[in-house]
């Protein structure tokens, strides 16, 4: 089998797996990073979302060959200690219920905030539209994304940013 080489959470990894094996199962079953979840296997629920070159990707359908040579960030690598503003906001507002979908929700929202630091409510709904939560934490997900965006803006202002 060809060797696939890519970076996960800043670390270079090589795996011997078929080209078409989804990133999800490589990350979970080969690399043992279980924070990225399996929910549907058909890019319908977003539980498996990670960042590839900063973009939110559904790993349950993305073949491993598609991330060859690229930077992959999973929930384990979003911040060293859970201090990303989204992770903090998620805790401040007690977003999680069962918690299963939340890694995917947070990673998806991280991509949103990276491209739209001040998302409107409509943009939040649009971005998170394909991230499902059976517990129904959606109202708090909305609020936490707004809060994280606000915290980031305040921090940027304090540093003399825009």
């Amino acid at each position, binding site marked *: 089998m060809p060797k696939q080489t890519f970076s996960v959470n800043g670390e270079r990894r090589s795996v011997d797996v078929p080209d078409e094996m989804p990133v999800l*199962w490589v990350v979970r079953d080969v690399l043992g990073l279980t*924070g990225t979840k399996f929910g549907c296997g*058909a890019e*319908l629920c977003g539980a498996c979302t990670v960042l590839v070159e900063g973009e939110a990707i559904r790993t349950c359908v993305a073949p491993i060959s598609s991330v060859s040579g690229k930077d992959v960030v999973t929930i384990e690598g979003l911040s060293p200690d859970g201090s990303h503003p989204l992770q903090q906001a998620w805790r401040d507002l*007690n977003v999680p219920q*069962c918690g*299963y979908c939340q890694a995917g929700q947070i990673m998806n929202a991280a991509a949103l905030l990276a491209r739209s630091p001040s998302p409107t409510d409509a943009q939040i*709904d649009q971005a998170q539209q394909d991230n*499902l939560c059976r517990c129904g934490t959606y109202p708090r997900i909305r609020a936490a994304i707004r809060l994280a965006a606000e915290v980031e803006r305040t921090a940027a202002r304090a540093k003399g940013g825009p």
Partner: protein
Amino acid sequence: MHLYPSGDVEIVVARSEMGQGVRTGLSAVVADEMEADWSRVRVVQAPGDPAFGNQDTDGSRSVRNHFQRLREAGTTARRMLEQAAADEWGVPVSECVAREHEVHHGATGQTLAYGDLAEAAGRLPVPEDIDLKSPDEFRYIGRPMAGVDNLDITTGRAGFGIDTRLTGMVYAVVARPPVVGGRVRSYESSSALNVPGVLRVVEIPAAPSPPGFTCLGGVAVVAENTWAAMQGRKALEIDWEYGPNGSHDSASYRVALERAVGVPGRVARSEGDFDAARARAARVHSSEYFVPYLAHAPMEPPACVVSLQEDSCEIWAPVQSPQRAREMAAEIVGLPVEKVTCHVTFLGGAFGRKSKPDFVVEAAYVAREVKAPVQLTWSREDDVRHDFYHAISVQRIEAALDDSGLVTGWLHRTAFPSISATFQAGVVQPTDGELELGCVTVPFDVPNLRCEACEAPSHTRIGWIRSVSNIHHSFAIGCFVDELAALAGRDPKEYLLELIGPPRVIDLWEEESNAYGADKSVYPYDTQRLRRVIEVAAGEAGWGRGLPQGHGLGIAAHYSFVTYVAHVAEVSVADGALRVHRVDCAVDCGLAVNPDRVRAQMEGATVFGLSLALHGEITMRDGRVEQGNFNDYPILRIREVPEIRVHIVESDEPPTGVGEPGVPPVAPAVANAVYAATGDRVRDLPIRLG
């Protein structure tokens, strides 16, 4: 609980965490009475073990059943620490007061830390006479407490059933009979075994009839990773025998249920004389309501690990009933139950699905054949097609009305396959227990009332899903009352209150406990409290306010799991599209132990209720489920989520439960709002507009 000389406290929680916040809520009760510093408390998950009593996490009863005894446990610890300090100082214990992880002696100003008292306190006899705190002394109870697992969840460290990783572990998926009652006639595995990474193919014996909570049987593919196992499964060639349910068709079954409610059923409750009231009535109104099969679809599909050694077995599983999982696995692997350990992982959603350990049984079968720890995972299609479904139902309600449109007689016939039929042969109609979930417990003050259970043999696995039979009973009753209000030309909320009648306690039970196993002297079914949540929801929602064109408000209320909930929904219908804009939810759950989690559960239950009101439908044809994933079994998405306002009624009554009771009123409130907006009646779920 454990108190260590370091001062660290461990509280063992013997209930499963599936998002209801049980690890936080139960621990906070102990810590509060113990006067423990919350930052020193660590929550430890209990394995499945009868030493903890019944560990089944269901029925919205973890807080209700344990609040008092956990308070007593915490207080007992506090008293022993005070006694240990009193002994150390040689002063009467009455002069010693525990506060925030220390014991204080007022007269001398001395303090001793809990950790320093741990060993001495541990040697003391357990005191019999203890004084619980008064509510104004509560530190954590009644305060919004953050979830103890939030950090692990937001960093991806929380371990769910699908996340256990052991050295040398193999991964399995199972091809199951597409029809309940079916079995493998023969299979060909050579293609599957040729798939790279596939290690073994293992046949699993078919389930008995009725299937119970064991697995359905089929063929397991074992591989080096989950994906390879899934590829291998695709390559299996299986000749299935479908069995007697191979012709089950949910559309024609609906017709059979409609026939069933057209004739008298088994009388489950009767007061006065409905037939006489009907004969005297100025008017008779009747309607029929339909709710389809529903699937749980927790975000984490069933998944677990079983590791079998020579004379022991370890299980890691997201189960609501770890003792049942342990016992059933023990039987399969042929070990005494004491040799089997069932570790309870986080449950990635459950809603009743994970009370049934069929997936653990499958993993046990595979582990028996494969000399390695086995991770067994269900795909989403497996989950949607092999669930323990919420029962499909048809109900018919008929009301005898007087000149003013008030109800003098009420006849409710309900037909749906029973949960009991899943594990007991010969059950062909709903049981009394299921009728007590919202049918015979109808809160109306009607002199002539009859409830009947009608014939509905089961053709699949029926299970309990968040609030169980209350879902369809609340839908039918909530919608029917709205119809009666309209016939009478009355405001739906005022009419509903009038039908409930003057405040009183409803007692349908000869024994000491009511339908939910709650002591009825502690948890009486009090219509005053139902009236109150209706008033609160209506008041907060601005019932009667002016609305934009095409908008409507609907109201419904329901008592379940000894909790009272009312919902008001505001919807609009434009160009045939239904949109829910806002939902107000009022809940009376007695003392709200963790008000933030009560709020979260009502938000979540509202979303769950909207999913089933707007989308949820499982259909079966040739005995097979026709849906498979979130594309054809949709659940609510964020864009559809209305503003949800939760109003907790202040109460000093004992705490009830909040996991389930927020679901039942949602669908009828939305259906009634659709009528208010359009004049069109909704009698089927999911709601589909003409």
